[in-house]
């Protein structure tokens, strides 16, 4: 008996019950009686939660507390009388923001179309729109609003610089980013004796500005340290290997909160006596090293997953060890663990709110503190009445974290062109 059948010459459509909405519902939600029951129960719960959630959000919620806190959420007590006596210092973080939009504009100019352009335009637009918000912070004049609006021309200036001058390369954007970050720190900290730049103690730095400063510094510095630690841990030199293992295991084995407590004592030990090391710097160092330890393990995982033939092929071509690592192993290892690396960046950003441990007012602690103050001073009857501010905080954190995820997804897809 032959098993060869007549060839089917025309393609038949799939059975009706398998396609379309009905087919999907049947396959996924109502395939068996218990699946159907589960679908009904979960559906009902979801509808109930949605009904109450949305009703609260659109009818009962009162977000005036967010606008009351306004600028405080963004820069903390930076522009208060204790911090910046007899002056309006709000222009300084704003100038730093102008640098950010300038660099975003340059990135847009270098990258051309696509995601970079979208991010640049969205950020500049949202920042500029803040100029029209009803702030309740004192000393908010037209100058502040004009500086916010200036972010749009700043973006366009950056774009033009990248397009029409020799600065239009990623190398220049990177160099200028580092310069801008350092300039931001000088701007915020101030210079003694320079008019208009009177020093502001870092203890008054706060709000979202503090979270972002810590996160940016942490991400940028912990990444190379993490790479170095990962390579060190795989080194054949026993001393280097031991040092890296000890470092990684110590920083991974102790909770960040504990490390931040200890930073008051531990970090100064690593520096000469009387070294001007403020609380913020100590926290930044601890957060960075903590993140670097995790980063090292992520990258080591990526290196471990590489086929040994990759390094062999490079060595067989006569590439020396360091070039093999730099050109062959690391690019592939990092690409393979981008999700883990970005996860670490996101964790670091969220962890920045732990600096409340050393008495700094980041956006979360600031909200909590002011919300309870309102209640204690009988300005509001219950803490319940300020819960909107925490919803707002969640939204802020979510936007930043989701943004990072989204960008990493784009990068992954971009780099996946030659995926094995």
């Amino acid at each position: 008996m032959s098993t060869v059948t007549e060839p089917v010459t025309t393609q038949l459509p799939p059975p009706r019950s398998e396609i379309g909405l009905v087919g999907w519902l049947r396959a996924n939600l109502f395939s068996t009686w218990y699946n159907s029951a589960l679908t009904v129960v979960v559906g009902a719960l979801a509808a109930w939660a949605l009904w109450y959630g949305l009703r609260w959000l659109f009818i009962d919620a009162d977000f005036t507390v967010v606008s009351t806190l306004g600028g405080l959420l963004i820069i903390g007590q930076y522009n208060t009388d204790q911090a910046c006596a007899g002056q309006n210092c709000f222009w300084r973080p704003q100038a730093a923001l102008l640098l950010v939009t300038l660099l975003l504009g340059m990135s847009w100019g270098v990258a051309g179309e696509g995601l970079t352009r979208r991010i640049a335009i969205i950020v500049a637009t949202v920042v500029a729109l803040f100029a029209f918000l009803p702030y309740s912070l004192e000393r908010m004049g037209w100058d502040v609003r004009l500086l916010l609006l200036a972010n749009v021309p700043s973006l366009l200036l950056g774009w033009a610089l990248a397009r029409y001058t020799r600065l239009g390369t990623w190398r220049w954007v990177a160099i200028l980013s580092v310069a801008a970050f350092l300039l931001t720190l000088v701007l915020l900290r101030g210079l003694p004796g320079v008019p208009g730049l009177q020093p502001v103690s870092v203890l008054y730095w706060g709000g979202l500005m503090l979270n972002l400063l810590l996160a940016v510094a942490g991400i940028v510095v912990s990444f190379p340290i993490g790479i170095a630690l990962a390579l060190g841990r795989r080194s054949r030199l026993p001393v280097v290997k031991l040092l890296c293992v000890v470092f990684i295991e110590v920083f991974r084995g102790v909770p960040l909160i504990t490390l931040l407590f200890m930073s008051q004592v531990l970090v100064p030990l690593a520096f000469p006596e009387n070294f001007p090391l403020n609380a913020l710097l100590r926290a930044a160092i601890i957060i960075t090293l903590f993140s670097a330890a995790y980063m090292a393990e992520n990258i080591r995982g990526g290196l471990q997953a590489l086929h040994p033939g990759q390094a062999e092929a490079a060595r067989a071509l006569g590439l020396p060890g360091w070039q093999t690592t730099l050109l062959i192993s690391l690019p592939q290892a990092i690409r393979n663990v981008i999700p883990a690396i970005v996860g670490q960046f996101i964790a670091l950003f969220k962890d920045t709110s732990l600096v409340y441990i050393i008495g700094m007012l980041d956006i979360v602690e600031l909200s909590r503190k002011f919300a309870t103050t309102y209640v204690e001073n009988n300005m509001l009857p219950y803490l319940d009445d300020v819960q909107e501010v925490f919803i707002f905080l969640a939204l802020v954190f979510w936007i930043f974290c989701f943004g990072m995820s989204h960008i990493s997804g784009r990068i992954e897809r971009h780099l996946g062109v030659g995926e094995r």
Partner: protein
Amino acid sequence: MTTNGTTDPVEDIIVCRDVHKWYGNFHALRGVSTTVQKGEVVVIIGPSGSGKSTFIRTINRLEQHQRGDIIVDGIELTNDVRNIDAIRRDVGMVFQSFNLFPHLTVLRNITLAPTKVRHMPSHEAEGVAMELLERVGIPEQADKYPAQLSGGQQQRVAIARALAMQPNIMLFDEPTSALDPEMIKEVLEVMRELAESQMTILAVSHELGFAREVADRIVMFDEGQIVEDLPPDEFFNNPRHERVKHFLSQIL
């Protein structure tokens, strides 16, 4: 270097004397001695685990031998890193699993070593790479990534990549074993052309047809030793060793 009777650095391009290699307690190479002359094509066969891959990997120091001497192109293989790098620049290697760099384009795979190791200007290296891609028959694939190529094409790129360093010796470690049957031919074709161009070739391969046609000598390994070393005609028709007959009867 002067000629000392046994080693002529011009003619004997590879000299191995009593080479031993252990993996832990396992004695993988047990006193291998052989000489390869410039322009010779040597095909190495043998059962799996016989040490044939280990042997050719010692020649560019991907494996370190623990006893005996290996002299390649007049340079003795020692722990001196400069010697090793000098030899690796002179010895091209092609692997069973291709080992192309997946994050680089085909062209960049080929130009990487010439630009980084030989400091060749990149436009010049690209010129050389395109010539080599012509030679292996796939110039149109230059801007693709390795994953977008078939196995046979990838292996031909790997050959071009090794040739870009202008080596005097080419090592092939089972170059066709990971390929589908219809792709083996295109790789062997490139190797045959290479053999005809007077390249010194050491190839571990089970392609006996190729060996019979192209090889000057066929060397058979068994249990870490060379058990036979004969020109193809004699090897197939008149092997001296029982083990060779047995092996041939199993794979023919």
